């Protein structure tokens, strides 16, 4: 978020401009200091990015270098005509929408509780951060164990409570696989919202709440009129960032279901991986990646020009 801020603030931290004589020397120093970072970004981000666009227009196969040459829109057609594409797109939208909504709700609830005058806040804060520290690959495996149909503790408890009559294979059934992975993703990602929202909550001036309370505003009304507007800027940044991060997340779904059963939890990143690493069709993988990138760019513009410029802060 600090990163996003930078572009908008136009280097507000810049000090008073030095005399013109030193300018050239400083420019050289700045260029020198930034050169390693710039070189890495150029070689490992800008070049691959251009490469994805380039490859998406060419036939490219990892095992068969003979198939090459200009493909035009063929790769895009391959993707769009793939019968898995539309379900994967729908899965991606479901997974992203539900994840971000759930994460925000949980994150806000935890942040509000932590912002109250409580004892041992640091301890509670430390505990809430735990899911975020566990690597996705390990969190995924751990939840597979909890949800195991034969020996999993959650199934046993659900049966004991009478909520279900027999243990279910939550990750192995077409109708529950995606939702289950989504819930686990919410569990793992909400602490980031909590910490960010907590910081914003602590920046709300107490006097505002006190004045409103004296004027007779109840808890709910003060929350709606004072707290929520103060959270608006942080919330927008959090939500937009996580829409992008969630839509392209590969790890969780790959670790827990590999997109199965019967592609029921396959999202677009999993499809990109399948094209490239299982079908070895680099062209199609790059075409799908390019389309995803277009979507990402669109999100970025909506965020930057729509929300930010129209007084989102």
């Amino acid at each position, binding site marked *: 978020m*600090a*990163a*996003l*801020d*930078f*572009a908008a603030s*136009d*280097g507000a931290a*810049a000090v008073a*401009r030095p005399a013109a004589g030193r300018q050239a020397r*400083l*420019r050289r*120093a*700045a260029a020198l200091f*930034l050169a*390693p*970072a710039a070189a*890495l*970004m150029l070689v*490992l*981000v800008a*070049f*691959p*990015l251009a*490469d*994805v666009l380039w*490859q998406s227009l060419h036939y490219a196969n990892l095992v068969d270098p003979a198939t090459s040459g200009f493909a035009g829109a063929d790769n895009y057609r391959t993707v769009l005509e793939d019968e898995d594409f539309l379900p994967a797109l729908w899965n991606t939208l479901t997974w992203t929408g539900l994840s971000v909504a759930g994460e925000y709700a949980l994150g806000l*609830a*935890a942040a509000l*509780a*932590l912002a*109250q005058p409580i004892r041992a806040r640091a301890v*509670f804060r*430390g505990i*809430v951060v*735990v*899911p975020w520290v566990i*690597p*996705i690959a*390990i969190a995924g*495996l*751990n939840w597979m*164990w*909890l949800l195991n149909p034969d020996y999993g*503790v959650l199934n*046993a408890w659900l049966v004991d409570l009478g909520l279900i009559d027999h243990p279910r294979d939550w990750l192995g059934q077409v109708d529950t696989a995606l939702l289950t992975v989504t819930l686990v993703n919410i569990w793992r990602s909400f602490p980031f919202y909590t910490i*960010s*929202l907590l910081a914003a909550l602590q920046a709300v001036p107490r006097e505002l709440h006190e004045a409103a*309370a*004296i004027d007779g505003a109840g808890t709910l009304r003060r929350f709606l009129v004072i707290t929520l507007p103060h959270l608006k*800027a942080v919330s927008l*940044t959090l939500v937009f960032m996580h829409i992008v991060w969630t839509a*392209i997340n*590969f*790890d969780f779904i790959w*670790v827990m279901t590999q997109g199965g059963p019967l592609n029921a939890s396959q999202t677009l990143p999993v499809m*990109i991986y399948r094209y490239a690493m299982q079908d070895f069709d680099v062209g199609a993988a*790059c075409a799908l*990646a390019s389309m*995803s990138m277009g979507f990402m760019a669109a999100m970025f513009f909506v965020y930057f020009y729509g929300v930010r410029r129209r007084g989102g802060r």
Partner: protein
Amino acid sequence: MVVNRSQRLIAGVATYATLAVFCVLCLFPFLWMLDTALKPPAEVMSSRPTFLIAAPTLKNFAAVLLDSDFLVYFRNSLIVAGASTLFTLVVSVFASYALSRWGYQTVSRLVGGAMVVSQMIPGVLLLVPLYVLMRHLGLLSTYWALIIVYCTFMIPLVTFMLKGFFDGIPIELEEAAEIDGCSRLGFIRRILLPLSAPGILATGVFAFVAAWNEFMFGYVLINDDARRTLTPGIMIFKGSHQTDWGLLMAASVLAVVPVALGFVYLQRFLVESLSAGAVKG
């Protein structure tokens, strides 16, 4: 606050109840992992699982440490995460110093803007070209492949976090040092780095944890067991047909605990720097 006592009591109870629910939610999966790791196979494979362990055992841990490649993966993760953290910090210190002091320069705006945009580009989209690039360079299944990729992804974030700390160091200090004949590099080494040490430590931990936890590139760019890192390595314990869950959970505990301990110890700094960014954003 003008609230009466009963209202305050209700609010207090509601707050602690919410926090209790969150604590269970956040800690339970981790505790169950630990619990499973300490169970003998018969209790792991029980259809009536309980928290209490009739015959606790360290056999799972012994098996992971002695009879598997766990320590090799652990060492590989240490090497890759350590080296990429080190390189990231070195490159980022210079970059963020430039952005902090000379942010108005065209070159700073250009590189800074590129870094912001790069934050929006997800790794999975670059997976294919980076795989092909590493293959051309002959770096597949080497530490360098991961070190270079992790550096690239962490440099923008670390640079902006460090910039926040550098911005807080008054320009007067630098001017005074310059008058005393201290060179720019001398200033960075003698004054800037010691003064922002807590910030550098926190960002370093952040970068280390990110590299330690990364899965996808470790999974794709490394095919050699001798170079495999921990997160993809753990997947090996999950056999394709039969999974020894006790073993898998023991390996998970051993992979998580060192990082979690470091994180809990240093979370104060990290939360502060994250919060600083969040409030501004």
